[in-house]
């Protein structure tokens, strides 16, 4: 069983984003329950439109501030193995659209930038993919 830690590198649209702190990838659909008038629990759960969202926190605020809202591209990052005998993992989100840039400047701590993305697709392919590094 592989475990992972230490984000090795993060890139967006081919540009490296330095000093990543965390990457949170969320894939969510809204559940749409329904039941008949003779039921008290839902008998059907359908899903609303799925959204692949990413929240990236990094200390390389210069790179973050150089981005523009609405930019789109592939967001890719690798995460290292937790132990030397295990494999790291590469994660890629296609057509990620940058929709939020927040930078938190601190008096007595390091500045942190938070970037938020939502991914589009061709409508059939999951924009999210992940695989262990061989």
């Amino acid at each position: 069983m592989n475990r992972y830690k230490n984000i090795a590198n993060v890139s967006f649209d081919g540009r490296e984003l330095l000093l990543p702190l965390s990457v949170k990838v969320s894939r969510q659909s809204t559940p749409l329950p329904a039941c008949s008038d003779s039921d008290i629990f839902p008998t059907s759960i359908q899903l609303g439109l799925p959204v692949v969202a990413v929240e990236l926190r990094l200390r390389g605020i210069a790179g973050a501030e150089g981005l523009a809202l609405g930019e789109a591209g592939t967001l890719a990052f690798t995460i290292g193995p937790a132990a030397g005998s295990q494999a790291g993992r590469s994660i890629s989100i296609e057509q990620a659209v940058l929709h939020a840039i927040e930078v938190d400047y601190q008096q007595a701590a390091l500045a942190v930038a938070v970037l938020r993305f939502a991914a589009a697709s061709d409508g059939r392919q999951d924009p999210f993919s992940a695989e262990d590094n061989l």
Partner: protein
Amino acid sequence: MSTLDGQHLFDSGPHTLRPLSWQRQLERRSFAGLDGELVLDMGMRSRQIVQQGRLQAQTAEILQAQLAAIEAFQDGLTHALTDNHNVSYSKVLLESFEPATPLNRGRGFWCDYTLTYRQLP
């Protein structure tokens, strides 16, 4: 599950049935200077029964076939409807049927629908 003329058209997903009020047609007459009114009962008229539910299928073709099977009952003839509680409604016309959502692709293909019957007294 509800049936229409004994056919299980709606079983792929859940649905609810809501019978609306019978309509009693009344003629009301009032006269100047007199309190009260005359009410003439013109008889019972029809009522609507509203069904809302969800249709589901593995393929778009099967879902389209389910929709077509229901639309085939929109023929101007009366049918017999039995609801989820085995309550029967006779002399029912299928007045309107339409998807309430687009034909969506999620866990298979699905759509919500609204179906309106008109029941004759």
